[in-house]
């Protein structure tokens, strides 16, 4: 049983405490609450140096110090406060930093509303348990031997073959039948690498289809994409130490993951509307009669400020596009506005739940569209890193982590 210490404010009065406990129990965890003497709280707050007014936030700080100093035994920490509480958000983040700086205890954070359900917390809790149970595996920074990683995504399936910390083969294709597609990309990547599939020492699988493919291919690693993608992204960007934010805008959904030393501690996932995904850009490309691979350069030549576009809904977004084209706006400006619109939606919707930490690593299929990278830069105010092979993060993470099984 993994003991997850809860440092939170407002969960009981928001009616979500039961959901938190249910999510933990589903993934084999148990929420625990570090005991603190009332008279120790003020001293702890003074020692910490951040002096919030809300007593429950003060208790959170005292509990964090108690954990870090080893007075209470827990395997992981879940830090949570109400969404849109400024004091809570500030404390939550500084406690997270403090625990990561002074201990090796894995942390995830979350800001909840009264609508938070166990299912929304499940991936976080699952990742937390994975981080505890596979701590040594996740610390791996170099790939060894000859391994492959398969990422069975909602829009595309990717495979990478690695040997001695280098990518020697890769292939992707749109996802069709899960197993057939995986076998196809697997064989093609091996062909590019110049090896036989039987030579591979280990295979790691992630993404939506991971269980089906993993079983069929006898994969050594079957793991959720949060931890696997994070490892792949920081390996590709060569940012394995310290803080980073990974923005992964894929074909069907998008994720923003904050990591510390390559291990995720918070993430948010969008996908309610295709307006904030690569799918919206595909529709725009079709309407502009350009190939998706040309949309980025087109956008780079345009000015998004000249076109009003709302991609909160892909249908309305396309309506805006049609109207602005009819008004005589240029294709370049429309392409730029489309990219900016996706970036803005990711910023306003997904990044609401996390604290953006530099550097920002932009990955996923849309990171290959240069206009999308420009748009993220405009929206965030600083340049994201787009690593080579940025669409292969899950596959690289799978190949890297599965090699951990080769060294006992």
């Amino acid at each position: 049983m993994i003991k997850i210490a809860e440092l939170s404010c407002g969960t009981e009065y928001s009616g979500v405490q039961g959901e938190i406990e249910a999510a933990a129990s589903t993934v084999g965890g148990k929420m625990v609450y570090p005991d603190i003497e009332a008279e120790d709280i003020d001293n702890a707050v003074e020692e910490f140096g951040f002096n919030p007014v809300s007593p429950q936030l003060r208790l959170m700080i005292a509990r964090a110090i108690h954990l870090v100093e080893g007075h209470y035994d827990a395997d992981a920490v879940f830090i949570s406060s109400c969404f849109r509480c400024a004091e809570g958000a500030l404390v939550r983040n500084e406690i997270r930093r403090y625990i990561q700086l002074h201990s090796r205890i894995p942390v995830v954070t979350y800001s909840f509303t009264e609508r938070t359900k166990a299912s929304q917390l499940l991936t976080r809790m699952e990742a937390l348990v994975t981080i505890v149970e596979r701590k040594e595996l996740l610390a791996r920074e170099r790939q060894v031997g000859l391994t492959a990683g398969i990422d069975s995504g909602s829009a595309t399936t990717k495979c990478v073959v690695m040997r001695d910390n280098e990518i020697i083969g890769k292939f992707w294709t749109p996802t069709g039948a899960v197993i057939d597609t995986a076998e196809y990309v697997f064989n093609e990547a091996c062909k590019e690498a110049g090896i036989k599939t039987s030579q591979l020492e280990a295979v790691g699988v992630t993404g939506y289809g991971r269980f089906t493919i993993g079983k069929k291919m006898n994969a050594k690693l079957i793991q959720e994409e949060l931890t696997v993608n994070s490892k792949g992204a920081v390996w590709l960007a060569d940012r394995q130490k310290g803080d980073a934010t990974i923005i992964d805008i894929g074909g069907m959904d998008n994720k923003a993951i904050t990591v510390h030393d390559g291990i995720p501690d918070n993430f948010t996932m969008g996908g309610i509307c295709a307006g904030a995904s690569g799918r919206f850009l595909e529709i725009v490309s079709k309407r502009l009669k350009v190939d998706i691979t040309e949309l980025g350069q087109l956008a780079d030549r345009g000015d998004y400020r000249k076109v009003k576009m709302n991609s909160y809904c892909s249908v309305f977004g396309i309506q805006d596009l049609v109207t602005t084209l009819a008004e005589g706006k240029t294709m370049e400006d429309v392409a730029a506005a489309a990219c900016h619109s996706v970036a803005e939606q990711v910023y306003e919707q997904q990044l609401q739940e996390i604290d953006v930490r530099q550097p920002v690593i932009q990955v996923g299929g849309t990171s290959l569209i240069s206009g999308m990278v420009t748009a993220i830069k405009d929206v965030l105010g600083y340049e994201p890193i787009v690593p080579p092979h940025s669409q292969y993060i899950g596959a690289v993470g799978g190949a890297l982590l599965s090699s951990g099984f080769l060294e006992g």
Partner: protein
Amino acid sequence: MKVFIVPPNSLILFDLVERFGHEPLSTMQLIQEMVDNLEIDSPPLNVTPDDVKRGLKYAGIEVPSGIRGRLAVWSELFEQADATIIMEDAPYAFGCVGCHRTNLILNYLLRQRGMPLLELRYPLDDEEAMTMVLQVKGFLGGLK
């Protein structure tokens, strides 16, 4: 040495730091430059959405924009500070950031930077005022 003062617009702290031979980092000049920036049309302070985004370096998107905007403005100063003087519980007339939450995170960030730091309580009578000045003098005198 460059000494950041909190509240960052305190004239008294500014004067003390300058009087005792150091360079005060205060918002007066910074705000003047922003107010006079005729190229930006975001009166009265000419803080732009881009400034507020810069504040993301110190606080997440969930933290209200006013806090992030303040941090972005003050960061121009505290990022270059060699030392800090923080005056707690000061009345408005002494200097004011205008936001308690900003005070919380600003003071915390300053404490985390590991630079020489003097924390004071606002003096309530003449004797406390004299003690405060002596403390500031001793602190600034000790800065190399």
